[in-house]
């Protein structure tokens, strides 16, 4: 019996952390170009939720810093983008990016396309479909691309099992989903999708993560 349990555990392990493709094989240009500084472009919003663009813009910054990159403050670059009519990233997604290199000193620009954005009021679940594209300002090439359809559970659990507890949870969830929780959810979505991105100069695994597994280019998941 114990043998089967151990075998089961091993199988579970292998399947949950199965190596499919290495990061160097999936994202070779990241290791060739080694970008250091990233400019976060205003998201391209393909949904009817106008506010999604704003919610999402600031959520890219910290997760990219945590991957070891230098990321220009979105608050400061946003002012510049707006004053120079560059707030619509659509015009740059396939265009020459050398101006971002000349003006900011950026090695790469992170584009995001919000493809879907919905939330359930009762369940407190926010589902975002976002594509992340990192393009080099030097060569214009795509260094990293991944898309995710991520459901983030923003519900609040008071720990109470009574009916009253459930009502408290429901009310708290409604409040939290209405406020900046959307920003938190956006950030979790970004952290999840960018988890297989090779680390930058300041990361602990910089230039050491070539053999780590890369995820699938399209990922669908629910995160808490």
């Amino acid at each position, binding site marked *: 019996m114990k043998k089967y349990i*151990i075998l089961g555990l091993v199988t579970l392990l292998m399947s949950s952390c199965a190596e499919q493709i290495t990061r160097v094989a999936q994202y070779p240009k990241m290791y060739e170009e080694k970008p250091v*500084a990233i400019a976060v472009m205003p998201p391209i919003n393909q949904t009817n939720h106008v506010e999604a663009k704003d919610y999402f813009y600031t959520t890219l910054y910290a997760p990219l*810093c945590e991957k070891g990159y230098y990321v220009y403050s979105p608050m400061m670059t946003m002012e510049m983008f707006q004053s120079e009519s560059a707030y619509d990233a659509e015009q740059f997604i396939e265009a020459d990016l050398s101006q971002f290199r000349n003006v900011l*000193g950026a090695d790469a620009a992170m584009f995001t396309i919000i493809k879907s954005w919905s939330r359930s009021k009762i369940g407190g679940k926010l589902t975002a479909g976002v594509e992340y594209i990192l393009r080099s300002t030097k060569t214009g090439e795509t260094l990293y691309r991944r898309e995710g359809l991520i459901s983030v559970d923003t519900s609040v659990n008071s720990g109470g099992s009574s009916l009253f507890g459930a009502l408290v949870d429901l009310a708290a969830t409604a409040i939290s989903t209405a406020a900046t929780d959307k920003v938190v959810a956006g950030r979790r979505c970004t952290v999840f999708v960018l988890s297989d991105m090779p680390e930058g100069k*300041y990361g602990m695994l910089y230039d050491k993560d070539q053999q780590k597994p890369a995820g699938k280019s399209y990922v669908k998941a629910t995160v808490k």
Partner: protein
Amino acid sequence: MKKIVISAICVMALVSCETQQSLYSWYDSEDATYTYTKRGTEETLTKAMAQYEKVINKQKGLRKVVPPGVNAEYGYLLCKAGKKEEGLALLRAEIKAYPESEKFISRIIKQLEK
């Protein structure tokens, strides 16, 4: 023997699926900045500034240094709030800590010095 095998599996699980520790401590700075950029009130600015102070002075992340952009953002806001010298010093600190920021931050410093 079985105990050893099981603990080996557990170790393997921890190694292969390790969760990464943060490089930086962010506290509530992102939410505070977001709220400030959306509302732009005195109250939200005060809250955002308190969070910046915390991020700058209480780093418990792996790198134990201020994250990219934070000195610059705080410095920029201080300049806008009239504390020009203090703000410019922080903007210069950003360049010192992150030389790759020089092109952009120098531009901002020049604009603010005008």
